[in-house]
């Protein structure tokens, strides 16, 4: 019972990830346009959550405190460094 549940978890993750991959690819292949960008970003974020949840077994409940802190701190650092770089250089770009 427990075994099939674990297998089911990977297969659910695969189905969701495949769906979240097919949507952006079809969108770019058919409609396109700058307005589709928001859908691409949304699908990417959702798919990362699917991977973390179903493949990497990261969850907010039942997780040890340090583990979650590690992931959240890395997310924060990435936000600061990547966001800061894009902000500063994007600002310079518009002034050129």
């Amino acid at each position, binding site marked *: 019972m427990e075994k099939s549940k674990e297998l089911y978890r*990977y297969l659910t993750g695969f189905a969701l*990830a495949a769906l979240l*991959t097919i949507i952006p*690819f079809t969108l*770019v292949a058919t409609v*396109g346009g700058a307005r589709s960008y928001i859908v691409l970003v949304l*699908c990417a974020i959702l798919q990362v959550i699917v991977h973390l949840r179903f493949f*990497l077994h990261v969850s907010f409940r039942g997780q040890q405190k340090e583990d979650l802190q590690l992931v959240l701190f890395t997310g924060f650092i*990435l936000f600061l460094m990547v966001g800061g770089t*894009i902000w500063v250089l994007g600002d310079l770009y518009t002034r050129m």
Partner: protein
Amino acid sequence: MSARTGQSLHPGLNLGEEHGDDHLEAETSVFGFWVFMMSDLVTFGMFFAVFATTVPLACCPGPKELFDLGSIAWQTAFLLLSSVTSGMAVLTMKQEHGGRGACSKKLVFWLLVTALLGCAFLYREISDFISMAAAGGPPTRSGYLSALWSLVGLHGLHVTGGIIWCLVIVAGVLVRGVDRRWKLTLLRWAVFWHFLDVVWIFIFTFVFLGGLL
């Protein structure tokens, strides 16, 4: 100690109680690998930041001339499938190798399928690199192209490393059997392999699909 065997000791798939001490031993080893993986993600993040600050110049062919959407879709499919098959390998180890002993054919099968899918991904990626260079987009042409080649290339190098690591594990479990050392190695490799697919989500979304919009 025994009270802790039931709970999740580290992020990622835990071996569980039937693995006895191996399960407890995995805590420090896998957590340590997660710390490395997070620092690796920051490295990738900086490559993304550099890429995001560059613009395709009018001098050189842009995304529409250089990218092949079909090929990117194949690479994405290969990598996603390999992520699932690597999960199958870890699941096989967890469920069928509670005790020590010779390694099962099923475990070797899933590991080899994962390595094969990884090779299929690399084959597509390298032929894309070759056709990009032929179409007038080598990395030396502009800042945008340098950033593109180094970001995608860094990911490709990681995949290459992951395939070699996978083959080393296959050799290890065949020769030594599925003992504690190889169990912990397999757990860490699976975390590495899953993260390669997570990074690829950002690459195909922002670099390729975003470029083609």
